[in-house]
């Protein structure tokens, strides 16, 4: 009888793993390979997207070291001492969101833009400065004009969900 227990354990384990995969949230579509001509692929897939996001973070950090920059108010809580891990969380969310918005294979699971910026009262000018820092990040990484325009159009479309929340 005891000799059957390991096999039964294996079956239980297999069933649980299968059900974990099958019962995942309905909002969690099956991942698919990125289609070859998507903006995500043209940006260089995960490595390209993460390099753009890293450049953006470097730009923000360099620009927020004086008290009168427009990015200071919105990004300062992330950039004060001992908050490097919060910057990493911001990076993670940016990679996920840009990945999904550009046609990448995986889904962004973070907050909606409205929820993420609630109470921040971001102004149109601050959103514009964010756009400049992001555009510089694209330029620094050699992103070509068509891809740059396409991505900036996606980001601009989020303005109403970010500004004035």
């Amino acid at each position, binding site marked *: 009888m005891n000799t059957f227990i390991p096999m039964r354990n294996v079956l239980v384990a297999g069933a649980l793993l299968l059900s*974990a995969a099958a019962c*995942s949230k309905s909002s969690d579509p099956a*991942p698919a390979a990125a289609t070859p001509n998507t903006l995500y692929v043209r940006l260089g897939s995960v490595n390209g*997207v993460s390099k753009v996001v890293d450049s953006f*973070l470097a730009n923000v950090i*360099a620009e*927020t070291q004086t008290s009168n920059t427009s990015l200071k108010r919105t990004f300062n809580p992330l950039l004060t001492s001992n908050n490097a891990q919060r910057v990493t969380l911001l990076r993670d969310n940016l*990679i996920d969101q840009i990945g*999904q918005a550009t046609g990448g294979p*995986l889904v962004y699971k973070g907050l909606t833009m409205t929820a993420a910026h609630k109470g921040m009262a971001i102004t149109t000018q601050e959103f514009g400065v964010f756009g400049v820092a992001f555009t510089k990040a694209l330029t620094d990484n050699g992103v070509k004009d068509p891809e740059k325009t396409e991505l900036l159009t996606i980001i601009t479309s989020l303005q109403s969900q970010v500004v004035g929340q």
Partner: protein
Amino acid sequence: MFALVRRGWLVGPLAVLAWANWEAPALHSFAAPIALVAWQVPHLPTGPAAEALRARLAAQPGVSACALSAATGTVSVVYRPGEATEAGLRQALAQAGPWVPQALPEAPAAAPTGRACPVPAGYVLALERVRFALNVRRFFVAV
């Protein structure tokens, strides 16, 4: 009873595996982890000289991104900790010209202005890494 005890040990690992595999992995889990460093550097160049310095630092092994701001006198570098070190980057900057990187003045921690997650971000990131390591669904995604 003995059989139940023997089977009981399986519940914990199975629960962890189910938790790790419940959702597809996130895209950022496939990106290399990074570290950030920023220095105050007096008399930074502007224009093409600044771009040349930025490109030189960005070309260092392990550097993911670099930015210079002459207006704020700041150099910031995003790098992959396994491939570059802060000391090495500091040395690379010093070798690029007459620039002496200094530590940024310590900024005071921001006072909380609203509700915030009580769990330190480091714990969240560590849990995420464990979940990704155990998530077999990552083998079925082409990123």
